[in-house]
């Protein structure tokens, strides 16, 4: 029978082969975007998992080379679109390192404040979708309710909900508006009750515990070897948080704990992020207390855009504005790698300047990219239903993976 087939049909003759290959995604709802997994299954058990990425590749790193430094900020918003302020921060801090700029205290405090709010917002999306993947739908609505409050705050400060571009090279786009602190305090007053709700809905839930405990194991040594960072690494009991290890933007002045879990599974990563919500909330409260009046832009007229009012009254401000917008500013030759603790882990920016107004090379070390590369290590040997839970626990964003 096989012999009669036309030659272009290739028949694989393996009668007792129980393994099958399943293509999960790129449209699968639990792959959080456009991730495709090639799973080799033996019954319900995953024998081999091969992530296939690149569906969202938009050549952002190429684009940076054609844009001036200040224009690159808006590209970073679109990488990890759940944590745009973190991306802004990593990018502008790399450029500031090359320029040798000093950032005023108030701008630094607002940066910390906004980054921690953004971290909570990012964790809200993770929690909502992670629970939704596992089958708990209610949590999703509670999470998005809280996230909406934060997005409103970010919108009030920057004008954008998802693409704020609020941090600029040398400081902030502008100061926070009147009434922002009051609204922020209202949020911080309400938030602990919301965290309690999440714990009530999920942490004590027997089904959720059964679905997450002991699933997706990765030991501390493997986690370091695979380059895991952020909550995924701390879920394996490795005490590493760049806010502590290599403090930036004045994080050394804040009092917060680094949550650690030892069980190395999905549950551990869940608990780390849940406890991080409380820690981030603590930092936000402290940042609000630290907020003192002062400038929010560095004193570098050739890099930082002048105030609108100054442009109308001072000729040199007008000239600087024209030059920055029309020609950009030259950045000293050299290369830097600046890493921050984003909501998903170590977000590093490698920036190389050849002395001109456009970077020679910008490379983003996305935490999602590296964390996803460890997925085969965690999934092989697990059940297929657990793959969904493990992807959720990695908290990936494909915009950052594919860039």
């Amino acid at each position: 029978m096989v012999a009669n087939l036309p030659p272009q049909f290739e028949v694989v003759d393996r009668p007792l082969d129980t393994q099958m290959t399943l293509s999960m995604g790129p449209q699968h709802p639990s792959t959080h975007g456009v991730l495709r997994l090639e799973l080799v299954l033996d019954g319900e058990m995953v024998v081999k998992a091969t992530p296939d990425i690149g569906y969202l590749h938009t050549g952002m790193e190429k684009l940076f080379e054609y844009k001036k430094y200040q224009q690159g900020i808006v590209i970073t918003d679109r990488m990890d679109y759940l944590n745009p302020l973190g991306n802004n921060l990593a990018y502008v801090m790399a450029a500031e390192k090359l320029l040798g700029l000093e950032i005023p205290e108030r701008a630094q405090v607002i940066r910390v404040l906004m980054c921690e709010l953004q971290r909570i917002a990012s964790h809200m999306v993770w929690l909502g979708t992670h629970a939704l993947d596992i089958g708990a739908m209610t949590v999703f609505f509670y999470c998005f309710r809280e996230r909406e409050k934060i997005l409103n705050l970010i919108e009030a400060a920057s004008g954008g909900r998802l693409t704020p571009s609020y941090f600029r090279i040398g400081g902030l786009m502008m100061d926070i508006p009147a009434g922002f602190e009051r609204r922020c305090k209202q949020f911080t007053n309400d938030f602990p009750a919301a965290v309690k709700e999440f714990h009530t809905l999920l942490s004590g839930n027997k089904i959720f515990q059964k679905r997450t405990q002991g699933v997706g194991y990765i030991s501390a040594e493997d986690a370091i070897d695979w380059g895991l960072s952020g909550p995924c690494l701390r879920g394996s009991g490795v005490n590493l948080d760049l806010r502590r290890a290599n403090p930036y933007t004045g994080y050394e002045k804040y009092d917060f704990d680094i949550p650690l879990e030892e069980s190395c599974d999905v549950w551990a990563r869940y608990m780390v992020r849940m406890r991080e919500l409380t820690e981030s909330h603590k930092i936000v409260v402290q940042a609000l207390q630290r907020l003192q009046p002062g400038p929010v832009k560095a004193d570098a007229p050739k890099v930082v855009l002048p105030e609108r009012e100054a442009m109308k009254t001072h000729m040199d401000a007008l000239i600087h504005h024209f030059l920055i917008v029309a020609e950009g500013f030259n950045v000293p030759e050299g290369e830097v790698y600046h890493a921050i603790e984003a909501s998903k882990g170590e977000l590093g920016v490698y920036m190389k300047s050849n002395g001109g107004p456009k970077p020679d090379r910008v490379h983003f070390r996305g935490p999602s990219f590296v964390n996803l590369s460890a997925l085969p290590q965690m999934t092989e040997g697990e059940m297929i239903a657990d793959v969904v839970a493990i992807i959720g626990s990695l908290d990936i964003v494909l915009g950052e993976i594919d860039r």
Partner: protein
Amino acid sequence: MAENNQAQGAETQGLSTTPNNSATPSPLVTALQQQNAEWVGEVIEAFGEVTVVVPRAQLTAICSYLKSAPGLEFNFLSDLCGADRGPEEEPRFEVNYHLFSTTKHHRLRLKVLLNEEDAHVETVTGIWRTANWHERETYDLLGVIFDGHPDLRRILLPDDWQGHALRKDFPLRGYEPYSLT
């Protein structure tokens, strides 16, 4: 305007940018030099970061040493990325290894320089498994070949893509519209 920009470049350069090779070298560099003087090529200390240009042939030996040596313990490969210095430059490509230690919390950048016609370097996947995807990405976008890599395929661009998109001579919009059909 050009004057303006130059003056500003000089101003901003001020503090930290001038490489100070002659001044006290970083203890990381001295440790490397003591182990094997051949390992250390050019040393650049700027912006509070240490870069060591290392010979390509000894890369894996250096990495293994840095990972295991007591006091250094670079057990975490933060990032690996390539860069194109431009088609007229020789050597044209560089590969940067950003090492980090989860216990000592210090960083070091290793740099390997590669010629265009011989853009090969030994893989470090045997030392840090996280290098796997980074090396695939560098291969995909720049065309640097990592010898001994277990699975050197394109990762971001489609398998049938022609050329390497992050090379300086690759046009921003590509040569022709890409079609899936």
